[in-house]
């Protein structure tokens, strides 16, 4: 612990604020951003059955994910105060036909789980 204090003082004195942000010669940069883990389950409102193949998109980025056979989805994304999310049925009638839903998710910490119910037309 004492050594870390000394290191921090030396860092300040050497006027090299970037000394903790480094990358190996042949490596990638470091990731210094905070992120958010969003996961959930999409079900049919009428039956409660999970729906596969629903496209879950963050509408303010180009990120998307499709629900699996259990209706589950999950992804990491930039940390933000709110997430506009669009649920769309893009596979035609393959897993039933459902209406799209737009929603805004406001998470309370850096990991969130929620369920979405979709209606048939």
């Amino acid at each position: 612990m004492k050594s870390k204090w000394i290191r921090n003082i030396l860092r300040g004195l050497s006027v090299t604020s970037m000394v903790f942000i480094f990358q190996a010669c042949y490596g990638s940069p470091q990731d210094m951003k905070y992120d958010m883990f969003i996961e959930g389950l999409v079900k049919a409102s009428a039956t409660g059955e999970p729906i596969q193949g629903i496209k879950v998109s963050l509408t303010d980025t180009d990120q998307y994910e499709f629900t699996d056979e259990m209706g589950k989805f999950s992804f990491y994304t930039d940390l933000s105060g709110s997430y506009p999310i669009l649920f769309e049925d893009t596979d035609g009638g393959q897993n039933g036909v459902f209406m799209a839903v737009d929603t805004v998710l406001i998470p309370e910490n850096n990991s969130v789980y929620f369920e979405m119910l979709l209606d048939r037309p």
Partner: protein
Amino acid sequence: MFGLFKNRIFRRFKKTEASIHELNYLFWECTTRCNLNCLHCGSDCSKDSSTQDMPLSDFLLALDTIEPKSENLMVVLTGGEPLMRKDIEQCGREIRKHGARWGMVTNGYLYNQDKHNALINAGMGALTISLDGLEINHNWLRNNNNSFARTDSAIALARGSTRLNFDVVTCVNARNIDEIPLIYNYLLSQSVKAWRLFTIVPIGRAANSPDLVLTNQQFKYLLDFISHTRKLKTIDIKFSCEGYVGPYESKVRDTGFFCRAGINIGSVLIDGSISACPNIDRSFVQGNIYTDNFFEVWNTKFQVFRDRKWTKTGRCANCNQYADCQGNGMHNWYGDKANVLVCHNEKINPAG
């Protein structure tokens, strides 16, 4: 006077860092397979590598020995070409779940929209794409006529991401040195924010291509170009940490030279070997995850990386800049420890 003071403090800082040796950056050589056959490859990998990819579960066991993990512990997937692994998204996702951040170095050939999306979803936070020239030279060096077009698409995807800390690296060599300004213009036109340049070190397959090594004059030209371009503030351009560059130290990088191999940087190599950067001579391996506890090895071995006095030999023995350089980058040493392979400072000032 101030510069001298700063240098002394920085030396002391490096010594303290070596003493603390906090692991912040861990390479995982997850495959040695590659879809290209680059002339300058430092790892000498191949399309049909006989070595199997390391199972994800084996790496995770090693990762889990690191306790406590530093807040920003970064796992960097490297190879070979990491995108050759079919389970690359799963690898990243599990690494993130196990408490580390992760990034990747890629040639970009297999990096398309779907892959980009899947990797971001899996928590990828940093990406480096290699670009070694404009179309003709890049394709020549990469031994593939479609390589530039693929890399160009990959760069367009990566630079558009708000999530990624993204940069382009260019391996500068005798073939592409004259088009460095053109590459710069290309990167500006692509809105790339960060560009890192390094030179060919005669290791791996590159050892068979001495004609690609920069002359002293070309090397100085490169450093002058970086120094000049940094002043323009149009792109975050820097010389990599591959070596100590004497009078250019404060001009071509954000910080002074500090080879952090084995001090903050470790690696798990394809066969389970525990080392520092993957391009360091394999005789410096410190253990193996299949027989040793990774973090115990990190904490109790690696002396050869943390106390570099042994490098004061050969042409380093009487160098008046040894205190700042300390034997150059560790990848410039073979296991016999007889002499440094490349002295960057000597290239700048041959008589010095």
